[in-house]
């Protein structure tokens, strides 16, 4: 513990000194700074903001999605796009009836819940941008996409690295990025139909086949031997 304190004392001032008392809800010093600058630039385009483990999560209006990236890059100096991803908040449909013994998937929520900074609906875009020069300098951006209009502005002209991330979100969730140079399949075969990371995408194998853990059960090591021993014991008792 003493070593840790010493190390902290020697580190340059720019490295975060302290993690906030409750990192889940409190912003780190840099994150609060970043949020203040974003608020000054974006104004009421910010729908909501919250803290997640010291970092700031900013939910912006959909029409400000591209502008938010521009501000992050130009004003905040976040020169690196970590990733863009989609979120589908719909609860996963139950894969098996209750009490069937199918334990292949963990218990799913029954109602739609949302993560940090909330959401208006089922689909969200989610991105993290950060600085390669300044330590602990990152912003998490979110925006809601209405179910009937899954369009958002592309970030490719701001962050060139957004290209593949947007292609992935396009094929996995069906989000359309306006201004993207070529939205085509990245991971999936080009004739693939559907958007497999949507929660309502049917897993066809489950439609035609029960979970192998139910129908193809092998005894655990020791179980079979125990059964044999028990049988042997019974046999021995009878013969005696």
């Amino acid at each position, binding site marked *: 513990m003493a070593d840790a304190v010493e190390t902290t004392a020697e580190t340059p001032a720019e490295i975060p000194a302290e993690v906030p008392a409750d990192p889940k809800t409190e912003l780190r010093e840099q994150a609060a700074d970043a949020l203040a600058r974003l608020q000054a630039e974006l104004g009421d385009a910010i729908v909501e903001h919250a803290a997640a483990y010291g970092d700031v999560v900013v939910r912006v209006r959909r029409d400000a999605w591209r502008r938010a990236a521009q501000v992050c890059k130009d004003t905040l100096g976040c020169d690196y796009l970590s990733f863009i991803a989609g979120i589908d908040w719909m609860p996963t449909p139950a894969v098996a009836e209750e009490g069937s013994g199918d334990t292949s998937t963990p218990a799913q929520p029954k109602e739609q819940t949302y993560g940090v900074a909330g959401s208006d609906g089922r689909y969200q875009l989610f991105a993290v941008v950060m600085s390669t020069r300044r330590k602990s300098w990152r912003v998490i951006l979110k925006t809601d996409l209405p179910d009937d209009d899954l369009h958002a502005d592309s970030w490719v002209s701001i962050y060139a690295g957004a290209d593949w991330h947007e292609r992935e979100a396009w094929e996995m969730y069906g989000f359309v990025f306006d201004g993207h140079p070529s939205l085509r399949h990245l*991971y*999936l*075969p080009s004739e693939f139909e*559907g958007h*497999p990371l949507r929660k309502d*995408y049917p*897993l*066809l*194998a*489950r439609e035609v*086949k029960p979970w*192998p853990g139910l129908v193809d059960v092998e005894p655990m090591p020791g179980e079979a031997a125990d059964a044999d021993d028990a049988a042997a014991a019974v046999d021995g008792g009878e013969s005696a």
Partner: protein
Amino acid sequence: MGLVSSGKAPKPLQHLLNYSRKYSLWMLQWGLACCAIEMGAALAGPRYDVMRLGVIPFPASPRQADLIVISGTVTDKMAPAIKRLYEQMPDPKYVISMGSCANCGGPYWDSYSVTKGVDQIIPVDVYVPGCPPRPEAFIQGIVLLQQRIMSEDPAERWRGVTREPIVVG
């Protein structure tokens, strides 16, 4: 070849041919996932060293290979490439499917992207179960395949005779 394909090769000649095929299996590696690590241990590790059994794992192209080992998760996107390279291999050729994913899809049995078993694309001679199988299991698969090659009538393949696949373990 005419003699062999007509099935009229004398027994000692068949024995000699099988013997030489058995101990010079050129193996096309198809490492797709974590099973490839175990395969690598069996191939290159000094503890297992499958080359002592005459398996040479470095053919320059599938056209020089006798054996293909599918070790790992076969996806629908990879499947056409596997079929294509398998078709480039000259007969007689053998396939070892290594690990649960290649055998039947394994833990990805309900996935949208995984082929549920490489035997849907190419005929498999030896299944090595496990997730992943230990190098010993893989080597046992090789030995069982060599035993089958030794007892094989080289003309069988031309006559279209197919045998039941071997399952290790």
